[in-house]
Structures are given as C-alpha cells and as structure tokens.
C-alpha cells in the first residue's frame, strides 16, 4: 500500500517483546525492503501516549496532521485509499 501511494507515509510503531523479536518480525515480513518506516519502542511510552491497549491498531492522519480515523485490527485499505483520493 505504501509503495502504491508514495504520498502516504506509513510508520510502523512496534512495542512489546524484545528488540530481537522485533528484528525477526521485520525480517520475516520483508519489511526492511518496504516503504514502511519501522521503529520499535522498548518501554511502551509511545503506546501509552496514544492510549493503545491492543494491537494491531492504526491511526490515519491527513497531510495537515489531523486525525482522520483510528481503528483496531487490520488496516482498512479502502478507508485509507478514500482519504488519499479525497
């Protein structure tokens, strides 16, 4: 999705487990070669800041930094595309 939409910046913000697991996750999903920026938070500070209590979870912001929608579960590609097309 990120490769098909160069104007969309996808930031993968991981937490829980260990850094070793996080690196294995990225390698197994071939995410290192994707257009997704992958980071890992070792102490949950970012998740707490966002109020995230379950995963996966996603939040979509427009180009003005305004939150458009946020949902738990798999990413709704249709909803994301609708925002990009608007």
């Amino acid at each position, binding site marked *: 999705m*990120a490769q098909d939409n160069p*104007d*969309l*910046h*996808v*930031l*993968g*913000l*991981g*937490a*829980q*487990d*260990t*850094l070793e*697991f*996080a*690196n*294995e*996750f*990225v390698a197994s999903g071939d*995410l*290192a070669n994707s257009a*997704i*920026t*992958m*980071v*890992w*938070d*070792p*102490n949950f*500070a*970012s*998740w707490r*800041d*966002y109020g*995230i209590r379950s*995963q*996966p*979870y*996603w*939040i*979509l*912001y*427009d*180009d*003005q*930094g305004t939150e458009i929608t946020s949902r738990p579960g798999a*990413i709704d590609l249709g909803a*994301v595309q609708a*925002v*990009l097309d608007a």
Partner: protein
Amino acid sequence: MRSPTRRAATAAFALALAATSCAGASSADTTSTATIGSAETEVAAPATTAPVNETVPAPDDSASTAPSTPETTTEPETATEPETTTEPETATTAAILQLPSVDVVSLATGEMADLNSFSRPGATLVWFWAPH
C-alpha cells in the same frame, strides 16, 4: 538715415495701430501716436523675431529634458527591488504531524532516535504492531 518710403511706411503702420487700438481717438492723438508708433515699429520688427520663437521648441529643449527622464526611469527600477519578498515561501512549508517525543529504535539502522524525527510531510498512517 531712413529713406522717405520707409518713413512713410512706418507712419502708416503707426496710424493703423492707433486706429485699431483706439478707434475714437482724435487726429491729434493719432499724430502723437504716429511718432510713438515709429518707435514701436522698431519693436514691431519682432515679426522677424517671431521665427526665433518658433525655433525655441526645437528638440534642444527636449534633449535637455531627456536626460532627466532616464534618471526617473532608473529610480523606479530601484523601487522595484524591494518587491523581492521571500516571506511567502516560508508560508508554503507543509504541516508536519507531531508525534510523541519518545525514544524508539530505528529497525533500519538499529539506532535510538526521537519518534518525532520520523514524522514526514503528507498523509501518515501509524501502524501499531507487536512481534509476537
């Protein structure tokens, strides 16, 4: 001195002037003006000086004013220099999403960095994930 014909001509011209300027004047007046008129005819010659006035509008005056007009044209050029306002460019900077300022590990480099440093212009999808 003057020839008789010219003297007669000046006297006739003086009479003509007196007749046009004061039609009801007495003859004595006309004679007196005739003598005065002779003096005026000396000035009346200005008929010949009139062409001199015609030459006045010659381009010499325009040439003298011409240098002043270029000076005024150069001044506006300097006046246009202040139009170089670069401030609008700063207004074109895109809004960037503000992310929490917390330390995270970049899985591309393995280095710690502020999460906010990964913010980019444009629409952003933040995906929360866990390895397990």
